[in-house]
């Protein structure tokens, strides 16, 4: 017995030394992350060693408090390193040993049953407090592993825990202040742990239910009033906002996002969600503004890791790893944001802004410091497409020389890789699994071919903008020559329909292909018209209308050429059709370069009408 007490004392001493050094060092800032990791590994192995020593002898009531405290410390260290399985194993062992003291046969290793039994078996207040502390850690492990069902089973005990936590915390603190040597010290105040777990649980549960379509507003709003780290408060506001957005209350959602930002300025996700809401509300100004701010915040170095200062040992992010939450919190990379900003500007007529954004984007991609380039999943389009979009924007901004330089780069990098011929399988049939590889290869060829063709088309546009019609004809011809290399196996297949077939990538490509044919033929026709080769012009414009019947400028120019050929009746009929169709504004459904840019010489409908009326009376 004497030996036992002395052992007890020495173990308590060892634990207290470890715990106080741990607390002390945790207070200091570690010089780097790796050091922190090393330190935590050392602590956990030290505590674990001590625990194994203690558990080497049969459990006894006298030593129960020490054992439970050491188990608590070890588990906290394990949890801090995300070693949840090891922590859970220790917790189960501790509960089993506790039951052995009471003389019950555990019989099972199901944690929920074990903990109920353990709580029942414990009588003393101090011991009960220790058991509750361990249960609290079990709660944390469940939360980290997203086992919300297990947590729901323990709803009562949790509330018990919450109720006791205040009193317990005070108690504990008083004791540690007195520094009685035979009371084992804990590395982390259990009350703080309970507070942390409570709000994290609310957040995780909120995210889960939100994805399931439930409304969790009240719980979230209650949690947002609780004392917690600001980042977590921001999350509660954010989730409330998402909830409101689901309930079709965009303005209130915006309010919540604003609150989230106020609580934690680094909550970029709130900003992103606001941008999405603005997009839904079609508030262009605000959306662009939000994207702009989002981009600049994302460029700050520490934006991706929100600092969660409180509770250094256990960071809240340990417990917030549920899948639905992370999908709610995900924010696209800075480059993606920049790209959508640029595209938005260009499409909505803020061309010069858009051009600046595109140039920034290209510069960022070329630069050597690669922030955010290595995102696992990139929503950015392929690089050549970015170049071409930027080129189109430059063209719209009346900077043909820059556009041509960009196109030259694209042509230079793809020209060697072009296939002689692209044969497309009939997309109407379901694709045969065996020929999948072939299709992929062909698609790749098709994509490269389209890139090059677009580059030539844009160059043609540039030259026509510069009124160098001969060069324009040359480049349009190159584009057309490339485009006719694509053959479709099934000749009966109407090429226009894939436009509606949104789910097939190839469908979009085919649609782009048809439009490019139409645009390049139209461009060449117009250029021919400018140098008075009216026959060729008429042929090209006619073909252009066949390839892309929606092309308005081609149709107007077709009328114009007819007019010049003195086929005024036909010209009038042709023009009549276009009155009702203005040139459509740009849309986001298709790449910018595959749409009718305002760069070609435009025939004003008013002038045409005037022309019609002039000869009428005569």
């Amino acid at each position, binding site marked *: 017995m004497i030996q036992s007490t002395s052992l007890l004392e020495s173990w308590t001493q060892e634990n207290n030394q470890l715990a106080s050094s741990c607390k002390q060092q945790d207070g200091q800032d570690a010089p780097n992350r790796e050091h922190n990791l090393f330190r935590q590994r050392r602590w956990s192995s030290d505590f674990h060693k001590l625990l194994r020593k203690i558990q080497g002898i049969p459990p006894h009531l006298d030593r129960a408090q020490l054992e439970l405290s050491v188990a608590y410390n070890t588990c906290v260290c394990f949890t801090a390193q995300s070693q949840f399985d090891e922590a859970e194993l220790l917790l189960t062992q501790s509960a089993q040993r506790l039951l052995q003291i009471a003389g019950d046969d555990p019989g099972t290793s199901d944690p929920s049953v074990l903990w109920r039994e353990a709580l029942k078996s414990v009588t003393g207040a101090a011991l009960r407090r220790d058991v509750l502390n361990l249960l609290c850690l079990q709660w944390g492990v469940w939360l980290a592993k997203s086992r919300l069902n297990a947590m729901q089973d323990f709803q009562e005990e949790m509330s018990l825990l919450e109720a006791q936590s205040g009193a317990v915390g005070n108690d504990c603190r008083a004791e540690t202040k007195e520094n009685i040597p035979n009371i084992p010290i804990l590395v982390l105040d259990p009350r703080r742990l309970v507070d942390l777990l409570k709000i994290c649980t609310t957040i995780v549960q909120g995210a889960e239910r939100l994805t399931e379509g439930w409304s969790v507003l009240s719980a979230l709003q209650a949690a947002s009033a609780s004392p917690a780290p600001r980042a977590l408060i921001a999350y509660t506001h954010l989730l409330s906002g998402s909830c409101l957005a689901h309930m079709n209350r965009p303005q209130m959602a915006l309010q919540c996002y604003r609150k989230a930002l106020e609580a934690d300025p680094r909550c970029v996700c709130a900003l992103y969600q606001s941008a999405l809401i603005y997009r839904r509300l079609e508030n262009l100004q605000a959306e662009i503004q939000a994207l702009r701010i989002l981009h600049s915040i994302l460029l700050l170095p520490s934006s991706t890791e929100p600092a969660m200062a409180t509770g250094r040992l256990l960071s809240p992010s340990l417990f917030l790893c549920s899948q639905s939450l992370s999908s709610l919190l995900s924010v696209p990379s800075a480059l993606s944001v920049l790209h959508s900003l640029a595209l938005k500007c260009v499409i909505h007529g803020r061309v010069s802004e858009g051009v600046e954004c595109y140039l920034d984007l290209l510069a960022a991609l070329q630069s050597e410091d690669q922030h955010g380039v*290595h995102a696992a999943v*990139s929503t950015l389009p392929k690089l*050549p497409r970015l170049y071409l979009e930027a080129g189109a924007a430059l063209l719209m901004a009346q900077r043909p020389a820059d556009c041509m330089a960009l196109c030259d780069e694209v042509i230079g990098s793809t020209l060697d*890789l072009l296939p002689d011929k692209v044969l497309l399988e009939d997309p109407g049939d379901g694709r045969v699994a065996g020929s999948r590889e072939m299709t992929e290869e062909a698609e790749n060829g098709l994509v490269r071919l389209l890139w090059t063709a677009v580059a030539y088309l844009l160059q043609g546009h540039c030259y026509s903008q510069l009124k160098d019609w001969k060069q324009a004809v040359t480049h349009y011809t190159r584009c057309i020559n490339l485009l006719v290399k694509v053959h479709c196996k099934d000749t009966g297949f109407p090429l226009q329909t894939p436009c509606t077939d949104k789910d097939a990538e190839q469908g979009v490509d085919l649609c782009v292909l048809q439009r490019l044919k139409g645009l390049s033929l139209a461009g060449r026709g117009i250029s021919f018209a400018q140098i008075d080769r009216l026959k060729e012009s008429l042929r090209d414009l006619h073909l252009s209308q066949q390839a892309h019947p929606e092309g308005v400028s081609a149709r107007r120019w077709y009328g114009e050429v007819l007019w010049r050929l003195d086929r005024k009746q036909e010209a009038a009929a042709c023009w009549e059709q276009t009155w009702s169709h203005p040139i459509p504004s740009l849309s986001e459904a298709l790449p910018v370069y595959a749409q009718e840019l305002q760069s070609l010489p435009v025939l004003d409908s008013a002038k045409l009408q005037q022309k019609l009326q002039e000869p009428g009376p005569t």
Partner: protein
Amino acid sequence: MMEGRCAAEPWAEFGLLGKSGTPLVKCGTGTDVFICIGGEEVYVFTAPEKTLRAVLQMPAAVRDLAVSHDEQLLFVACWSGVYCVKVQLLVPSSSHDTGSGPTELKISTECLVAVADRVSSLLVVGSVLLTLCRTDSSWSLTLYQTQQASQSDPCDLLASFSLPLVSPSVQGDTESRCVLVCVYPGDVSPASSRLRPSLSHFPLQPLLFRLLFGAEAALSKSPVVLCGLPDGRLSFLPLRIPGSRLRILHSLEQPVVFIGASAVMEANAGCAGCLIALGKQGRAVLIGAGGAGSEGDGGARFTLGCVPGPVECACMDQSRVYYSTGSDLLTVDLWNSSSGTAGRQEGEEDEGSRSNPAALLTPVSLNVSGVTALHQPTCSSAGEVQLLSLSVRGRLQSIRLPVRTQEDGLSKRPSSQVGRSVGDILSAIGDVCERASALKTIIRSKNQILKELNQVMNISFLLSNRSEFDSKPVRCRGLVRWSSLLQRDSLNMTCVLENLSPFVLERGWTLSVTVRPLSCPLEAGGNASSVNYSFPFGGLGPGESVEVSLPVAAEGDASFPVTVTCSLLFSLWKFLGQEEAAAPLDSQRACFSLPLNTLTVDWLHALRLGDLPAPPRSSSNPADLIQGFISSRQLRCRGGGQASRPEEYSARVRVSSELLRDALGLTPGGPHVSLLEWLLSEGCGGVKAERKGIKTDGGSSVICGSAPNNAAVKLTAEEVNIEEKTEPLVTMEVQVKSSSVAAVCGLHHAVLHRIQTLLQKAGSSRTVPIADLRLALQQAEVERGQVWEASSVGVSSGQMQTLLLRVYQQLRDGPLLML
């Protein structure tokens, strides 16, 4: 081709290589070379002064080294993570301690910049540090942003890419290192490229770059990281493309040892037009741009080649690959090689190399052995190529290759160079000598093997060319004896293999002995079960013999006679050892068998004399006496009960005394005793029975014993005078008596067999009397008629048995006289 001699100059000795790490020689900053010999130390060696400048003591075995581009930081990969050391620390603070020996630095975990388990390779591209690690299920390439400011700051993790393992079971893979190199398009403007062309950074011809890595990589002018994995895959990752992932370029199907780029014969100098990857077993792939427009999609051209392996390490200069097989250093000229695989010829030759995918590149030997690590070659202005190598024994040596130009033949050297060249030649001689001695031992062992195989051939010829009856020059004798082990008696045979041939039976031979009863009891199903014993032995010279011992039968086992078939087995596997014989031979052909003679152990051999199962009269124990009495009573009672059946069976054999006398040289005094002695001790059928001395009943001609089935038997020999055609004839009659039919039959058979062989030996001069023979035949005919009658009438099985028994008795009782 390689006219001049290559000179190896030892620079320093570092001791034997460690096993845990990877031996490395890497170019360092300026003229420094970093050397790792497989342990925890990294040595810093200055090339011009040929001195060791510093030693870094790492916390764990070193796997790889890399130097940052500004040459300020040295990254060292150990098993547990990557450590960063400032190069400045390695430079002695002032010049005075150049004489005081190398600086020693102990690197602690303070310098850890990236924690990663099982780091296999390192690469620095710009400010990005790449590590390749093997996890349980995948290879993962991790990118870190290095901190230029201070060494102790950890690197920020940028991204991680993984490639699943092909076969997780391959354990040996963990040991072999991966290869990480970086290639970038050659037209990158110099402002943006701070990449120094070095061992693991190559500018690539833009066309080839585009063909291999696609338009996107070309457009972003992104450096591309190439990984050669131990499973043979070559994968690549463009660094600057958003959302790029590791993709497979090619698979060598053997561990990739080296990836290099060849730069020669390109218009735009400094750009490599051909990538080469070497596999561990010597497979090589050359990747070049296909002929312009020759193929439809103008893809890159992969030419497969092959060099004699194994490839331990390799390096290359502009056009030549240098590689070490461990025993020799070889060089392959990629462009002037006779097979011309890497050439840009179109047409037939191109077709030829494609149809024959494993075109052999012809290497030229440089006669340097034991190289385990190579440093990138440096080429002096005179065209002299210098290689730094680390040998298996931990020797750092500089290997200078002769100048490649043809016109250096007669250039006169200054006297200072002569001395050096003599040293070079001496060390080259040392290297050649080392290789020669290794080759000599191999030749010696091959010769030995050939000699032994010759002996084997001779012996097999001797043994397989004899007919059945010739006595073979290698044969077995047997000696049987009863022995008792664990209260169980068994008949053991000592089989003696004698080598009477003039050849030696070397290792690889096995004596195989099969013990098989000639017949067996009906209840066993009629199938005699055989037992096989094999005894490998090594080395049996002419006239020598080897003894082996094996059990033939146990007590109570009556399945005699037993044939013991001996044969010699020869196994090439045992002869050559597993590793040499395993490949070319299957198990069937690697082993053959030569039959030797067959021994027969019969009832007479197995007869135990003297100790009757019935208690002897001399026994004084009253209990025994009573027991004996009772048992004899019972026997008699039973005998009385079955009066119709005789109590004992007997069989007789008669031989003329004259014959015996002539054949055996028996003394006339007691021929009967001698006959019995002869019968019991004669080595018949190659087997002798070991007896301690035959005790006959006080000079009488009766021997009592017990058969192996524990039946008591009595052998009697007496002289009988019979009338043969009015001529009195003295004959010897041997009578076998026992209550067991089996014992009587067996012994009778054994006695007859012996006398038969005796007669055969005595020669054919003697004749068996015709009349007697006719009489015997007549009697046999009569008996046969009786049996035939009985079987045709259809008597019951019991009656049939008795009938057969009677006929047998009669045949045995009317003994044929042998003259």
